[in-house]
């Protein structure tokens, strides 16, 4: 006979009948009745009114009946809190039962009665059970502490249960240890003390010992707990790794992933050049691959995590691309993830295979998968330059299939390929244009329009093509409208004579017939630009754009690090930090990777001037080409247009003039220097509507960055300007600029990113301790090989040697020695840059002759080869010009 009969009770008067049966004299009848009640509860009927009758059956020596009554209690205690009290006595009594199964059952159920009133009665029984002689009872009691903490955290703490739990970590029974760890970890998630488990080397050792003996689930709790530990040094990290590594061979995939998490975290602490580091990396790959032979859901979790691991440490799986090839019967979620990882692992070495696979996938039937495959081909082209040509021809093949969504997706990625490799594949434009009519998705239409606009001069009928889109302008999506506007403006600037009418048309459509504020604004911008100064308009609109970068969908590094700490968890599946999807987790510590001890934290020191620091940083090595031309064309005569303290209007003049420049880009002017503070201040004038500014990024050869956020708190109005003093330091990213003293600035607001650049007077980078010791100077000067020296003339400088020397000294160019040779004054000078580079010079001044001769030599601290003399002269030139007023 089966239990299913209990589900088939009659409807009318059911409760009444059950009530009678529950109070039947015969034990068997009562049990049957309780089963019927549970069956009713299971199918969702409300049987809470039977509460007192069911609780009456609690006092029984029949274990099965007791379990059923307890089950009922857990379900309805909350809705009948007053009556739940009736059960307390029974719990207290059962916790003393000679049978450990009953003691455990009582303590397990107690914690599930989520009624605040009765929890306090349960403390004493729980205390006893935590010290029970039977491990089965202790392990159940350990979990009960976590349950009570969830109901009444303060009480659990006051009663000292957390200490009891911590004591259980040293229990002789592995299952008790594992449950104590699980309970403590659970509690610590909502507890202000993040080190609730008191992780110290002794406790870690206990956990590692228990790891070998407990069940697979216990191993997971322990590993997850271990991953929160920060070993004090690399030795400790390595010894823990050594004891965790065997878990990679466990059959349970969750054990494997938790072990991977511990190892990925502790890898951070191991020196990269050690043998052990390399061995460990090698050991991680096979278990990750094996996870892909698991059930599809396990594969999915594995793939989402591998996606993170591949971004964090690409070397682990770089040889394994084949295992990510898609199988026909993979579920769609597995297919899409595999595809993503294939792209991340694509390299010159495997690109042929990858492309062959992608082409295969692109002919499948699942639309989402096919689209992603086509996109993947485009990403390969952008990522692996050598494969670009092959990718393009594969995409062309796919376009020939005429499968509509394939064609559209292909056109979108081809646009991006054009943005990465401009002027390289425009021969295929004709083929693309053939498909114009079949494009019905905004993305694809916009991509095609962009291509036509960008290459308008090479497409004979570009005007016709764009005009055809114009007909249904108002039915297009905003994206297409904006692209079309820009494309027609580009076309006009390239072929002004034939397209005047077209551009008029689009401008009036955008500005007069549209409600869309973005479209109108952009329309007006173009309109005014074109009517004010077409030449400048051409420069602005058709100027070269930066190439798009290789990987666009990488997870931001700090988030990636955080997610690595959550390997195996939902956060790693969603690629979101836990506080993004767990309620009430905002106050909780965010996890981060351990930091290697002893590493230099450069974030503190404002300017690194020492030679060692300078050597740590990548040196700025300007290329010769353009700079050389620049220099030779420049008149080294009397300086006029150099920004000075007094000439700060220079930037302002431009801006206040209201010219086109001020419309498209804000211009700053760097004007003052505080050398004592080793800080540079910048004053910026804005004339653009900047609204709220989000961030402010500097790029320059000397690593200049602002040390505070941009202090603009209210939106700026058109033509409003504002002065800002911004403390700067030179600890930012170093990027070689051309010319060397160029500063690129990006300002982001909600509309867009604005870029501009300006020249920084180089002398602000000269540090005060740039005076070289006489002896050192002599030796260094002599050691400079001839080919590293440069000599040239500075014309029309009517100052005597002492005045020059004094002026230069004010700018931290120090005269080390002065002598008079045959009536000429020879000044020997040194200066040092913020990045530690030394520059030596000899200045020859003939009284009465306004032309000086300058000889410059290389620094002591650099690779002489890398540092070309011509660059030094440019440095010096700027200095001299800057100082001579």
């Amino acid at each position, binding site marked *: 006979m089966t*239990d299913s009969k209990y589900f088939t009770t009659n409807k009318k008067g059911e409760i009444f009948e059950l009530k009678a049966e529950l109070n039947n004299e015969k034990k068997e009848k009562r049990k049957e009745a309780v*089963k019927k009640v*549970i069956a009713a509860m*299971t*199918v969702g009927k409300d049987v809470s009114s039977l509460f007192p009758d069911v609780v009456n059956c609690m006092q029984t020596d029949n*274990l*099965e009946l007791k*379990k059923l009554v307890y*089950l009922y209690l857990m*379900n309805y205690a*909350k809705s009948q809190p007053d009556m739940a009290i009736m059960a307390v006595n029974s719990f207290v009594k059962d916790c003393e039962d000679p049978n*450990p199964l009953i003691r455990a059952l009582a303590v*397990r159920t107690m914690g599930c009665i*989520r009624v605040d009133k009765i929890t306090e009665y349960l403390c004493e029984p729980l205390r006893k059970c935590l010290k029970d002689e*039977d*491990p*089965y009872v202790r*392990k159940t009691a350990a*979990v009960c502490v*976590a349950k009570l903490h969830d109901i009444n955290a303060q009480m659990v703490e006051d009663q000292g249960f957390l200490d009891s739990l911590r004591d259980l970590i040293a229990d002789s029974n592995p*299952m008790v240890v594992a*449950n104590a760890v*699980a*309970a403590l970890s659970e509690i610590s998630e909502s507890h202000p003390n993040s080190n609730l488990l008191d992780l110290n080397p002794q406790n870690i050792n206990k956990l590692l010992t228990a790891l*070998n003996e407990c069940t697979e*689930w216990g191993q*997971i*709790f322990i590993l997850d707990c271990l991953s929160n530990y920060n070993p004090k040094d690399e030795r400790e990290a390595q010894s823990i790794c050594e*004891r965790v590594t*065997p878990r990679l*061979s*466990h*059959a349970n995939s*969750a054990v494997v992933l*938790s072990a991977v998490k511990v190892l990925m975290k502790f890898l951070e602490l191991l020196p990269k050049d050690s043998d052990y580091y390399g061995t460990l990396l090698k050991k991680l790959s*096979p*278990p990750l*691959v*094996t996870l892909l032979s698991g*059930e*599809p*859901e*396990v594969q*999915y*979790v*594995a793939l989402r995590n591998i996606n993170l691991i591949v971004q964090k440490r690409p070397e682990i799986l770089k040889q394994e691309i084949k295992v990510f*090839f898609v199988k026909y*019967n993979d579920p*769609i*979620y597995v297919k899409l993830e595999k595809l993503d990882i294939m792209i991340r692992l694509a390299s010159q070495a495997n690109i042929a*295979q990858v492309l062959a696979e992608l082409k295969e996938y692109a*002919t499948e039937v699942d639309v989402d998968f096919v689209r992603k495959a086509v996109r993947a081909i485009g990403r390969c082209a952008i990522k692996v330059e050598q494969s670009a040509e092959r990718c393009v021809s594969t995409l062309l093949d796919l376009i020939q299939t005429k499968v509509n969504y394939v064609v559209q997706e292909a056109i979108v990625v081809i646009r991006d390929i054009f943005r990465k490799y401009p002027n390289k594949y425009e021969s295929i434009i004709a083929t693309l244009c053939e498909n114009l009519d079949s494009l019905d998705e905004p993305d694809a239409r916009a991509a095609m329009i962009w291509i036509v606009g960008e290459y308008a001069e090479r497409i004979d009928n570009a005007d016709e093509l764009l005009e055809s889109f114009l007909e249904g302008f108002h039915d297009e999506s905003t994206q297409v409208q904006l692209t079309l506007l820009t494309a027609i403006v580009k076309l006009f600037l390239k072929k002004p004579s034939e397209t005047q009418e077209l551009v008029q048309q689009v401008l009036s459509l955008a500005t007069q017939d549209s409600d869309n504020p973005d479209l109108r604004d952009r329309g007006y911008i173009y309109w005014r630009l074109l009517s004010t100064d077409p030449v400048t308009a051409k420069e602005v609109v058709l100027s070269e754009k930066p190439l798009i970068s290789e990987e666009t969908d990488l997870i931001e590094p700090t988030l990636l690090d955080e997610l690595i700490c*959550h390997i*195996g*968890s*939902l956060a790693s599946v*969603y690629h979101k930090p836990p506080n993004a*999807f*767990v*309620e009430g987790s905002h106050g909780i510590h965010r996890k981060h990777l351990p930091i290697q001890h002893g590493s230099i934290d450069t974030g503190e020191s404002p300017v690194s001037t020492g030679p060692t620091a300078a050597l740590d940083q990548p040196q700025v090595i300007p290329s010769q080409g353009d700079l050389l031309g620049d220099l030779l064309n420049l008149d080294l005569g009397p300086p006029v247009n150099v920004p000075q303290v007094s000439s700060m209007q220079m930037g302002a003049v431009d801006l206040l003039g209201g010219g086109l420049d001020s419309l498209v880009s804000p211009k700053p002017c760097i004007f003052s220097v505080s050398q004592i503070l080793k800080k540079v201040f910048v004053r910026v004038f804005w004339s653009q509507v900047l609204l709220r500014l989000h961030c402010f990024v500097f790029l320059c050869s000397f690593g200049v960055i602002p040390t505070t956020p941009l202090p603009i708190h209210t939106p700026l109005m058109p033509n409003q300007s504002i002065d800002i003093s911004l403390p700067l330091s030179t600890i930012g990213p170093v990027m070689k600029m051309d010319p060397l003293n160029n500063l690129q600035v990006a300002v982001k607001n909600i509309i867009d990113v604005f870029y501009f650049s300006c020249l920084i007077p180089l002398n602000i980078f000269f540090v005060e301790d740039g005076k070289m010791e006489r002896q050192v100077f002599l030796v260094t000067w002599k050691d400079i090989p001839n080919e590293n020296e440069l000599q040239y003339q500075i014309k029309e400088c009517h100052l005597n040697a002492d005045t020059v020397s004094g002026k230069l000294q004010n700018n931290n160019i120090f005269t080390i020695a002065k002598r008079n040779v045959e009536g000429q004054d020879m000044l020997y000078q040194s200066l040092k840059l913020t990045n530690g580079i030394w520059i030596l010079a000899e200045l020859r001044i003939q009284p009465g002759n306004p032309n000086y001769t300058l000889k410059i030599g290389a620094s002591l601290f650099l690779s002489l080869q890398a540092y070309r003399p011509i660059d030094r002269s440019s440095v010096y030139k700027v200095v001299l010009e800057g100082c001579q007023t």
Partner: protein
Amino acid sequence: DAAKRILGVLICRNYKGDVDMAEIDHFLPLLLQQEEEGLLSPAITRGNVHFLWIKHSNLYLVATTNKNSNAALVYAFLYKLVEVFTEYFKELEEESIQDNFVVVYELLDELMDFGFPQTTDSKILQEYITQEGNKLEVAKSKVPTTVTNAVSWRSEGIKYKKNEVFIDVIESINVLVNANGSVMSSDIVGSIKLKTMLSGMPELRLGLNDRVLFTLTGRDKGKSVAMEDVKFHQCVRLSRFENDRTISFIPPDGESELMSYRINTHVKPLIWIESVIERFSHSRVEIMVKAKGQFKKQSVANNVEIKVPVPSDADSPKFKTSTGHAKYVPEKNLVVWTIKSFPGGKEFLMRAHFGLPSVENDEKEAKPPITVKFEIPYFTVSGIQVRYMKIIEKSGYQALPWVRYITQSGDYQLRTNS
């Protein structure tokens, strides 16, 4: 792992009480919606509740949580549930749950507590949770010490008249062949299964011709096998294996999978398929399939099944085979060519002819690959061998190990040109 609900409306168990029981009602509509949009995912979110689900025959096993739970653990646990229920009830289906709901509740209580998985070894569970619950038995009222022991998978006091252990070495070949005949990927997934019929608490040691072990001990590497990755049952001492590659363990009683391994070496596909599928629009499809046994002449592949895809609108099949027989399975759009016994080195041919309707459906059709199923007894493709199985029990009995080898097809796919 806030609350684990099993079988949706069939039966639920709320372990933590932090997810509303009514939330589960949203699961199925969400799932169906995702399915329709083609964006199916094993983790579905609604508000702050996450549904992690697996499907077993026509049942969904769903875990709900509102925390950043260990997803890997959740899926492993759900599959464990299937395993335990299947061992208890033979079939896990709606009926067996209803028929045994009292035991199911008892099991759910024992398997997990407050979202933490506990004892999931069905053999041990069966010692104190039985289906004959109507009678109160002595055995049932005591917790077996095994539950909390370090050896949590084997009970004490097991007795057999004849002590034997049967070892099955099963290797599955996974192959993916491109339409132009090049092997895109291939690997071997091996599994060593035990049927243990041993008394007491025996200590076992399994010796394989493992290349790493041979290298460690300085033996001839010639006949050894390099295993890329190895996974062991809970019972194997992992640290010991990590140290000196010794596979030592106290086995669970009865049947269990002791270990599995993966081998990367490029294997020649044991059954090679060449196919020509020609489609003449509006008239017919001609299929020619050639199968070749690329294994030793002494060996025989049994129960070979070669499944060839055909267009969904094909009709009036005609077949010709040089051996075995071919059958059209219209509901799966397949021709299944069955060969009972396929000796190594032999080559067979199958031709099929289908008519196509003059009005074709213009929907693009999927391109399923040809798949092959087979098994070859007495042979492992990797050459792995059980060198010894040492069995030591303190009572000192003699026990016999029996070894059997078999190679079979795993995920065996050959893409076609059609």
